[in-house]
């Protein structure tokens, strides 16, 4: 277990380093000088940029300056919001996105798992077909399209939920559902496949031969083992929720980090884009690492290995 965690930790570290290095070099590859593009920068701001990025210095020094900055958590200034650092924006906007993301996960996980189990158990019957249809559709319709539809139906036509922004509980419903649906579809599909795989295993037959009731078999034997592959997918799921927030926040005008990210791209705010990319990368790598630890704990084959 220790060896396993160390290995995952090392890989996480290397990944972060790789990401930082990539963003460093990409910044220098950007067409033209980002600081002299369409933006009208005051002299102070240019000074600031030069100092932060050390653009007058040799490349190696620039690299170490950059890395040093990153390690301290300093990600520079936004080109657009000229007086604000990337950090301050992150601190303001991240909680909003986190709220949205957590709600989506909290909705998608239990429902998706439950539907997956239900459709595996009643294989071939109505419930199964319904779940398969839902999951196939959910996978085929991109979340931003779904979000727009939900907006149209519930906000414009039926007028029962607000259109945009993130103030009351009612405001939070549609965006959450928009992200959760896609995730739910994938979860149902995977859980169904996992349950079906587990049900044919020999140890299920053993459990049955002991005379255990069906409920007990499903709970103690099947679900426990079926959840393990799902756990490995948790990392990519968090990533996809993150990606989802980018577009959903745009559609619903939610002042989260995703919105800032998308705006920074269209607005050519390169420092913001880079900074946020590194932040997202670090966030996801940490999330993956935590999932790896959880997996190591849950699977006794790993937990008890030397």
């Amino acid at each position, binding site marked *: 277990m220790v060896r396993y965690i160390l290995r995952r930790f090392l890989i996480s570290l290397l990944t972060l380093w790789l990401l930082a290095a990539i963003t460093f070099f990409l910044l220098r590859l950007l067409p033209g000088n980002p600081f002299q593009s369409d933006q009208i920068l005051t002299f102070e701001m240019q000074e600031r940029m030069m100092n932060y990025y050390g653009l007058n210095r040799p490349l190696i020094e620039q690299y170490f300056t950059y890395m040093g900055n990153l390690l301290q958590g300093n990600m520079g200034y936004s080109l657009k919001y000229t007086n604000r650092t990337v950090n301050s924006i992150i601190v303001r906007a991240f909680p909003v996105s986190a709220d949205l993301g957590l709600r989506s996960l909290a909705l998608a996980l239990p429902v998706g798992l439950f539907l997956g189990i239900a459709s595996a158990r009643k294989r071939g019957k109505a419930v199964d077909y319904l779940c398969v249809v839902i999951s196939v559709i959910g996978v085929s319709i991109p979340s*931003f399209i779904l979000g727009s539809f939900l907006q149209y139906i519930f906000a414009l036509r039926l007028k029962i939920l607000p259109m945009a922004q993130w103030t009351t509980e009612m405001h939070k419903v549609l965006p959450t559902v928009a992200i959760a649906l896609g995730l739910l579809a994938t979860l149902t599909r995977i859980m169904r496949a996992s349950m079906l795989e587990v049900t044919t295993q020999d140890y299920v037959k053993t459990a049955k031969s002991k005379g255990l009731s069906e409920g007990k078999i499903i709970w103690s034997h099947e679900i426990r083992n079926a959840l393990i592959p799902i756990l490995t997918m948790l990392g990519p799921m968090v990533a996809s929720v993150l990606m989802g927030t*980018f577009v959903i926040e745009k559609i619903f005008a939610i002042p989260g980090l995703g919105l800032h990210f998308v705006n920074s791209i269209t607005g050519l705010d390169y420092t913001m884009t880079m900074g946020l990319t590194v932040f997202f990368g670090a966030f996801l790598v940490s999330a993956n690492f935590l999932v790896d630890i959880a997996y190591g704990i849950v699977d006794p084959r790993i937990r008890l290995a030397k």
Partner: protein
Amino acid sequence: MTRDFAGIPKDEFEFAGKSEEKSELLTRPSISFWRDVWRRLFKNKVAMTGLVIILAIALSSLIIPELSSYSYSQQNLRNINAAPSSQHWFGTDSLGRDLWVRTWFGARVSLAVGIFGSIIPSLIGVLIGGISGYFGGKVDMIIMRLIDIIICIPQMIYIILIMLVIGSGPVPLIIAFAITGWMGSARNVRGLILKIKEEEFVLASRILGASHGRIIFNHLVPNTLGIVVVSMTLGVPAAIFQEAYLSFIGLGIKPPIPSWGQLANLGTAVFRIYPTQLLIPAIMISLTMLSFNLFGDGLRDALDPKLRS
């Protein structure tokens, strides 16, 4: 089933001759693997429907823009945001461009990006995974470790970073996909090759002195072909989705070249007033993704030896 055994005449109790050929005869005719695959695929109505839709859309995308009198970038500021009419079958957008032509030209772009954006990374992955799996040892370990590290970060982030630098458009998009999308394929193929390498028939081949090339072509390729084709097919909707996503956030395909993602993006801006401008690309995207998913699933089921009847 009571039969009158006593009534059987005595002469029935004579020895019948013994025919050896008959005893070895398996009573079911055996079909070749690939014929069986085709047969099962054709029988799968859902998958076939998907295929038909894909072909229909592809064909339309090639033919329709050629037949139209408008070009995809032709603006007409006196007729903006028009509803569908006999002149403009899908209406016009906020710059007066004909949406019918833009939709079907966009089909070309999105399909091309989707298909090439799936095939090229797959092929790269097959190459790398194949080398890694076949030669094993240090090469394998290094490549796999590299992949482990790279893959921690979602592909989309890499693509965004790359596109910031190389700009937008269909070709840069495909390049970005190619650079960032080969990992999954490589891992799968490598795993498969490792498994096959251990199978006895490969061992037998090597003992009999087959060359590397022969082993690759006669053993490894046929067994991996199916899986690779399936993952390529299922990779298309993912690529289409990614293109739509990127265009939506302003990176993928920029106007005036239309793509479904871009049309969706433009459509969401005016969605509340002119819903058709979003509805049409949305339906096209969803329909195409769905069809590829269904066909890919059908392909995968057809190739699964356990379902062999």
